């Protein structure tokens, strides 16, 4: 359009302007309203911000508190807490225990690389564990960590990933597991020890469940039974047991399964090759302490086939012995000593006895076995308790002869100890023998009496021969005197002189010297008969004292030949003082008489105790006795060398022997010609009667 606007156009324009104006005024109004609204909004916002700031401030305080709380929480944890950056793996946050447990200060720890804690070489494992944490969110690792002192401490550690938009983190917690490790190690050790034992044992070591199935079995089952362990595991042991033994075993098995117990079974078990073999098993049931339930049954088994065979043999020999035992005519009784509260023997119990026991004593076996000696023999103190208990306690056997008045019987009792506190008596009834002995003794006495009477009667004429010969001697002396005085003028005078002063005195000397000899012999016989007839007084003798007094009585003879006598400490014995004095005197006198002139005589006298006996020995280094004489030296009037210058009637040893016989003792000699002799004398050290 060009030129001047028309009215129309103007009108239109005004209209337009008016329109605009109205729009503008509306807009203005609107703007004003909006401004007002804005103003209101502004006020509202202003208020709100103010509120927010306050809240923010509050939140800040709370946050700080929470931070302190979590710090404290971390510090009071028993293990170590750590926060590492990822992937840098530098430590940026930790708790106090981290410093304490590993010994490093905060400055030393800050920014420490994770690998610096670990044993060199395990880095790949650690890295893998760390990556797994970051990938999956969490993970656990067991690894030793370096302590400041250079040692590594085993730790169990957790890891959790934690992410912020800017940074990824790894945090976690670790505990010291030194103790657990130690226990684990010990357990492993003992387990390996058990394995070692089980695997190498010659016995079969097995573990069973309640049904008897093998849970474990040691390899020795191969050598003992032929099975491999894997052939047995899972199978019941009862499958292999001999049917005859099964019932018995199953019964006992039940007991073991029910409560903790140890039982020993003997049974036959099937070997892989076929035959059954004898086994002995010790079973032990193990129960869980907490639950009280059966855990397992341990079994240790061994092959006892050989033992079984031996047992069979033993049984056979036992049968033989029992037969013998009961067939014996001697009573055999086995006892056990019973002690009082102070440990002193007070009684004995009869454990076993044979048939002869009943036959001789009249006591039935059933009334004796298991009962006390005091009951069976009806006495407060059972017979011979002292003697018996001594044997049971010392184990030294001992034998004695005794008269048991309640039964009017004489016994020889041998006591032996078959085991600790036990003794067996083997008793022989010698009542009959004793009766014979008594008769012999009686006869002996009679003989001794004859001997006495005979020698006495022999002596009477001898006294006459002696006396009248002496008178004859006197008369002939007188006659020779007369003949000297009055000279006979005869051819016969020389002859008479010769007869009276030479022939007759010579004859008389023969008569007299033979009378002395005969007198000596008769005296000897008298002495011997006296030794037999004399009544002894048996009492305890101090042998040391006795020997010393004998030796000091011989001091003169001993000094004369420069002899030495050594007397050891001598045990006491029982006997007749006078007789034993004579006996020892005779032996020592012989040692002096028969000393070797080539060396100074040494006599050693010693003694030792042999339970109820004492053995004295008298050793000399004299001339000794040749073997051919040794048996005869005890005979009356026997002298080794009758032509010897040594005086004697040959009575000393035969009297010694008689004295020892009367003392129920023994005397013997060991001798070597040219070396010396030892006389042994055995006497009793307990009281006895003739």
């Amino acid at each position: 359009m060009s030129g001047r606007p028309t009215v129309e156009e103007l009108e239109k324009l005004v209209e337009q302007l008016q329109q605009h104006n109205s729009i503008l005024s509306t807009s203005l109004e609107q703007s004003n309203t909006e401004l007002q609204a804005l103003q209101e909004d502004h006020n509202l916002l202003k208020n709100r911000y103010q509120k927010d700031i306050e809240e923010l401030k509050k939140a800040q305080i709370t946050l700080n508190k929470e931070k302190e709380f979590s710090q404290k929480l971390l510090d009071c944890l028993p293990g170590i807490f750590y926060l590492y950056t990822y992937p840098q793996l530098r430590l940026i946050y930790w708790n106090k225990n981290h410093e304490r447990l590993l010994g490093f200060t905060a400055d030393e720890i800050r920014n420490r690389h994770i690998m610096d804690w670990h044993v060199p070489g395990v880095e790949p494992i650690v890295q893998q564990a760390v990556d797994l944490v970051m990938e999956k969110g969490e993970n656990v690792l067991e690894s030793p960590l370096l302590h400041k002192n250079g040692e590594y401490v085993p730790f169990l550690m957790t890891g959790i990933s934690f992410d912020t938009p800017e940074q990824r983190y790894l945090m976690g917690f670790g505990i010291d597991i030194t103790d657990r490790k130690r226990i684990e190690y010990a357990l492993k050790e003992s387990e390996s020890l058990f394995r070692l034992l089980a695997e190498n044992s010659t016995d079969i070591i097995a573990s069973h469940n309640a049904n008897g199935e093998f849970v474990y079995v040691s390899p020795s089952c191969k050598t003992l039974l032929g099975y491999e362990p894997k052939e047995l595991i899972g199978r019941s042991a009862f499958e292999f047991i001999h049917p005859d033994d099964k019932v018995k075993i199953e019964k006992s098995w039940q007991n073991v399964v029910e409560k903790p117990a140890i039982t020993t079974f003997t049974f036959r078990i099937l070997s892989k090759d076929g035959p059954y073999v004898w086994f002995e098993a010790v079973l032990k049931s193990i129960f869980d302490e907490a639950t009280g339930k059966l855990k397992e049954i341990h079994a240790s088994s061994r092959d006892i086939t050989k033992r079984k065979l031996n047992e069979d043999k033993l049984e056979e020999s036992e049968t033989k012995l029992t037969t013998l035992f009961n067939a014996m005519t001697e009573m055999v009784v086995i006892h056990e000593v019973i002690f009082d509260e102070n440990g002193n023997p007070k009684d004995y119990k009869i454990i076993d006895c044979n048939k002869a026991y009943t036959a001789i004593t009249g006591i039935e076996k059933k009334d004796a076995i298991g009962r006390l000696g005091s009951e069976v023999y009806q006495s407060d103190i059972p017979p011979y308790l002292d003697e018996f208990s001594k044997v049971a306690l010392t184990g030294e056997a001992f034998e004695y002869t005794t008269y048991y008045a309640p039964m009017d019987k004489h016994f020889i009792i041998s006591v032996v100890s078959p085991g600790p506190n036990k003794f067996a008596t083997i008793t022989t009834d010698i009542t009959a023998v004793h009766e014979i002995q008594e008769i012999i003794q009686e006869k002996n006495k009679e003989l001794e009496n004859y001997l006495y009477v005979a020698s006495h009667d022999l002596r009477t004429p001898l006294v006459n021969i002696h006396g009248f010969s002496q008178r004859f001697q006197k008369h002939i002396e007188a006659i020779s005197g007369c003949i000297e005085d009055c000279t006979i003028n005869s051819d016969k005078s020389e002859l008479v002189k010769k007869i009276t002063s030479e022939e007759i005195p010579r004859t008389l000397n023969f008569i007299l010297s033979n009378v002395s000899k005969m007198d000596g012999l008769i005296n000897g016989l008298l002495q011997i008969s006296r030794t037999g007839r004399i009544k002894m007084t048996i009492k305890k003798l101090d042998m040391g004292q006795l020997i010393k007094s004998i030796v000091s009585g011989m001091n003169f003879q001993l000094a004369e030949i420069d002899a030495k006598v050594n007397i050891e400490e001598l045990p006491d014995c029982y006997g007749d003082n006078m007789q034993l004095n004579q006996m020892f005197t005779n032996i020592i006198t012989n040692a002096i008489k028969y000393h070797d002139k080539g060396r100074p005589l040494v006599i050693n006298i010693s003694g030792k105790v042999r339970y109820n006996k004492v053995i004295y020995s008298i050793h000399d280094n004299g001339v000794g006795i040749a073997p051919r004489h040794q048996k005869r030296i005890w005979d009356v009037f026997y002298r080794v060398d009758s032509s010897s210058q040594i005086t004697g009637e040959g009575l000393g040893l035969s009297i010694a022997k008689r004295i020892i016989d009367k003392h129920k003792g023994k005397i013997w000699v060991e001798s070597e010609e040219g070396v010396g002799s030892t006389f042994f004398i055995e006497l009793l050290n307990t009281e006895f009667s003739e």
Partner: protein
Amino acid sequence: MEGYKELIIVIAEDDEGHAELIKLGLRDSGICNKIIRFANGEEAWQFFEGTSKTEIRDKNKSYLLLLDINMPKMDGVEVLRRLKADDEFKDIPVIMLTTTDDPREVEMCYKIGCNIYITKPVDFLKFSETLRNLGLFIQVVRI
């Protein structure tokens, strides 16, 4: 000597030889007292007791008895026992003579009361000495 009782020696000995030897021995050693001999204990006892038919003890005289032990009828020990049990005879000295020296016999005789115990054969010189001393002692005591 006035006042002295004559001492008579009595021998009780069954063996004739022994009795003879004792007598001779006593004489040889100068003892001349009267000697009476009996062949067994019973006779000797009867002599002292006064029941003997042959010879009876004279109460005015002193006696010394030599007594053998082994004799028939009554042995010496019995004679000794009877004498010593009797107040009238218990002071008579008794010498036991025997062939044995059994210590128990010796002990028994001393217990009963014999004065001396002598074993045969005897040394007569020593024997006589003992006798004389004993006899004189007895006589002195008897005054």
